[in-house]
């Protein structure tokens, strides 16, 4: 998730939380007959509130609510429920002065398929994501709990080094999330 999306979420939730808290505290203070709240309640113009739907602008207010509610809701859902795809990366060839464009998702698939061949690895899932501003090849590896983690880590670091080398210094990270099967229910992998 991007920094900006996370910040937008936090601000919106904070505002709604403060509004709910304010409403609750106001109502409790009303019940407890706190003087200042009693004064506010006494100033409550019931006739004016009741007459609001009869105002000329009521229809426009409803229309604005429709538009703002739809835009706000759809944009917020899109921000939270859609995964931001990475942009293709242009890899330079310094010798010829040309570029080759690489889809990072396909590169992630290549890395995943390579790690899938490691003994003890049962399943791999690959995706290219922007993780807090950094394009990242994220590989989730599910493996047998008896996996030689030292050797697997070394192998993964070699692969990541190769990715960094072949991308010619582009700011793309490689991340391997290693998940192991339960020790008492190992899934034996043919290797």
């Amino acid at each position, binding site marked *: 998730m991007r920094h900006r999306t996370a910040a937008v979420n936090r601000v919106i939730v904070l505002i709604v939380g403060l509004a709910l808290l304010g*409403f609750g505290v106001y109502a409790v203070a009303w019940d407890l007959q706190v003087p200042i709240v009693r004064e506010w309640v006494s100033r409550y113009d019931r006739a004016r509130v009741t007459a609001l739907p009869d105002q000329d602008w009521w229809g426009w207010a409803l229309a604005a609510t429709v538009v703002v509610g739809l835009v706000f809701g759809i944009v917020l859902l899109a921000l939270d429920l859609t995964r931001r795809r990475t942009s293709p990366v242009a890899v330079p060839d310094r010798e010829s002065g040309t570029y080759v464009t690489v889809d990072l998702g396909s590169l992630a698939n*290549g890395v995943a*398929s390579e790690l899938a061949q490691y003994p003890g690895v049962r399943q791999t899932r690959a995706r290219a994501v922007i993780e807090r501003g950094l394009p990242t090849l994220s590989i989730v590896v599910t493996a047998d709990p008896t996996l030689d*983690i030292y050797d697997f880590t070394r192998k993964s670091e070699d692969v990541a080094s190769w990715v960094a080398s072949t991308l010619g210094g582009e700011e793309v990270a*490689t991340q*391997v999330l290693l998940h192991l099967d339960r*020790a008492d229910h190992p899934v034996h992998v043919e290797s």
Partner: protein
Amino acid sequence: MAEPFTAPPAGPHDDAALDDTALRGELVIKERAVVKIAVAAALQVPGVVKQSGGLSRLTGRELPRADVSTGAGAVAINLYIAVQWPCHLDLVNRRLRAQVHRQVEQMTGMPVIELNIVVVGTESAAPEDSSTESRYSEQGDPAVPPAPVAPIRPRTPRATPAAVPAAIIVAVGALGLAVVAARELLIMRGTFANAPWIRNTVQWLGRLHWSEWIVPVAAGAIVLGVVFIVAALKPRPRTHLPLAVGETPIVWLRPTDLARNSSSHAKTVPGVLSAHTTVDRKHVTVRVVRTESTPAGDVAISVREAVEPTLSLLGTSPELRVQVKP
């Protein structure tokens, strides 16, 4: 596809006619022909592989494929390829450009003024091909071994922010409000007759006096408000621990997976009947049940030797505790 020549049949007595350009006819090279030439040229380059599945064949998304535009006696090509992984992208790029330029220009006589190469697929080499090292080296230029490059450090994996579910609830609420407001507008316009919920609610608020039900509702609002505020301010917890042989951690492990690995290694120790591991921030505790014939001290040392290599990869160096029970 190249159009057939429309020139008249040549014969020994037609040489003079062939010299007359007006009678030679015209050679039309369609873009499809250039596409086929480019694709065939791409497949001749080591490292470029053909990818065609059932679905991609149906949708015409086989690789390699090319978009070609011709005009003014020149060709521009967008070439989409799949490469065998691992590969030197710069080397593939160089070889591919040379091959496509040469083949297209030789076969069509038109220069390639623009060639954009896009890698959209990869295919891993078969595991039995060779070892990792040789697979890497055979892809590259033997004269120029790949320089070791320090990988970029990935971000620390963290849980989804707690604000996200709350924000989704707010978004759904906003959409619900929009739908209710739209319904109200249609009722106002007389599109259909029904109870105007918002109008009725506002008028009800105008008549509202203190009622007993307000207290539990207020308490609920306070609780929900506090939950939302906490969700908004709560930092994202780390979900994985970094493992590193070199400088940059690439592999990340959940604490539960570290426990599983420790238990599975502890179980391989002779004399251990069962093992259970718990992991917290500072400690890894392995509890093993031994056979009666095996001394507890020997089991503890062996378990420690079996588990420590993995723990040494952690940057945090948690304390290893081994508890042996008969």
